[in-house]
């Protein structure tokens, strides 16, 4: 073990450390009392894991897990032209989202490059909440403010207005039901409604990033500890455990969900990432990136770029982001995310590979793991899909 290795790798994230003091969530003292290993994530000091990340992962798949996601960036958009602004600023048809529903979407540059992937909740006819990745929240806020010129709409930085607690896993509906009168059975996937949980006002959303059923609860920071403790108590008998960002990453990877900075970047369009379905050319009016994205779509027909695929290891060595994918003695792609999969019991990865090697079952594909070519099976994403 090298000291530098420990210092570098144990942090669990490859983003540069911020030069300023890390930001702390409202649950910081609670995490420390639970013995969490903390990590810098996009300038926030966040729980990486509390105990074994594999146990935390398995708890979410089979029982339930509790996450502090307060680093996520909330931006509120209000006003008579809130819908029109978001239709212009984002690639999705946000005006068509019903009140009480949510939409997965993206914000792109004029050249079609992805600035961030987002979940947008329509809270009222003229009020939306945009949730951005922590690492991109400022970029998204700046872009929305800039793009709001000429619209009768207000863009408000609400990053400090919310703590975000997620309860994920098959036991999560039962746990939440014991703490709220809200109609959870009527709350569909990608829906959100205001309610009261454990006496605390909350926006209750049926969303997540784990591949399981689950909820995300947006509350005022001063209510976060109270809500966390109530959820912990309600989940005591059914195996709820606190979960860190490490298992969140392996859960989303198994579920084939992209992570900005890995599968998504400004160098890629939504079409490059295999997520062209989020781009709605049919919506009314212009939107930022329309022309470039139209060209990207047309180019797909004759110039197939690299394709995002799943890889499953035949051996036990773990592929990491940036490792080369090889076949026939040539580099044919690059790993974007990789980890040991607790559910499959094998290392898995997402990778962009040349289209000729992207078909599931393509033989002779390997990953260059520090000089050694390890055999990998090409599979369709996701690796894991829950039984409904």
């Amino acid at each position, binding site marked *: 073990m*090298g000291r530098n290795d*420990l210092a570098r*790798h144990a942090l*669990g994230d490859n983003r540069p450390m911020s030069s300023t003091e890390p930001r702390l969530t409202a649950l910081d003292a609670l995490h420390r009392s639970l013995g969490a290993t903390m990590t810098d994530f996009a300038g926030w000091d966040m729980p*990486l894991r509390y105990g074994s*990340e594999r146990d935390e992962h398995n708890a979410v798949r089979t029982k339930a897990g509790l996450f502090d996601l307060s680093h996520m960036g909330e931006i509120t958009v209000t006003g008579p032209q809130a819908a029109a602004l978001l239709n212009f600023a984002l690639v999705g048809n946000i005006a068509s989202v019903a009140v009480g529903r949510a939409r997965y979407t993206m914000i792109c540059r004029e050249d079609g490059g992805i600035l961030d992937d987002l979940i947008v909740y329509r809270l009222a006819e003229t009020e939306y909440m945009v949730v951005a990745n922590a690492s991109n929240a400022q970029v998204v806020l700046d872009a929305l403010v800039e793009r709001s010129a000429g619209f009768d709409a207000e863009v408000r930085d609400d990053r400090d207005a919310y703590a975000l607690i997620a309860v994920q896993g098959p036991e999560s509906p039962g746990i939440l039901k014991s703490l709220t009168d809200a109609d959870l059975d009527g709350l569909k996937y990608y829906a959100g409604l205001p309610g009261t949980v454990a006496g605390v006002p909350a926006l209750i959303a049926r969303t997540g990033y784990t591949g399981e059923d689950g909820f995300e609860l947006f509350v005022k920071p001063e209510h976060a500890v109270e809500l966390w403790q109530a959820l912990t108590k309600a989940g005591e008998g059914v195996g709820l455990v606190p979960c860190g960002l490490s298992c969140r990453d392996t859960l989303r990877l198994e579920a084939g969900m992209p992570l900005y900075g890995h599968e998504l970047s400004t160098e890629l369009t939504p079409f490059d990432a295999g997520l062209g379905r989020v781009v709605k050319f049919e919506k009314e009016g212009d939107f930022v990136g329309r022309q470039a994205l139209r060209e990207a779509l047309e180019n797909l027909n004759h110039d197939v770029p690299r394709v995002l695929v799943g890889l499953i290891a035949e051996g036990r060595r773990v592929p990491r982001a940036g490792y080369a994918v090889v076949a026939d003695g040539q580099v044919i792609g690059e790993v974007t995310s990789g980890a040991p999969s607790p559910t499959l019991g094998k290392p898995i990865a997402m990778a962009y590979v040349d289209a000729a090697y992207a078909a599931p079952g393509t033989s002779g594909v390997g990953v260059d793991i520090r000089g050694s070519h390890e055999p990998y099976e090409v599979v369709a994403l996701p690796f894991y899909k829950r039984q409904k």
Partner: protein
Amino acid sequence: MSNPQQLRYSKEHEWLSGAEDGVSTVGITEHAANALGDVVFVQLPEVGDTVTAGETCGELESTKSVSDLYSPVSGEVTEVNEDVVNDPSLVNSAPFEGGWLFKVRVAEEPADLLSADEYTAFSAG
């Protein structure tokens, strides 16, 4: 966490047992295992390999990272722990016991290995 008194420690977070018939056992400390998280893959030197103090002789992979394994002493590897190769979680569950990594016939020992108390202070700092 407590570091066994009878072991000596490197600043790279390996431990070394006292020699029995000139052969010492090597592992990583509980502090290192905790910092790594769940270990999922262990690559060890082979029996007969010569290892050199302070140089890499294998690697440890956990969920989030891969780290080089450094030998705390120089000598010839006499045995490797096949149990830990088959079940790397032993490194986490019993770093000072069942999670040992390899045995080495010590040819030369660096002068700067730490006592348990020195290592405890070092790893807390």
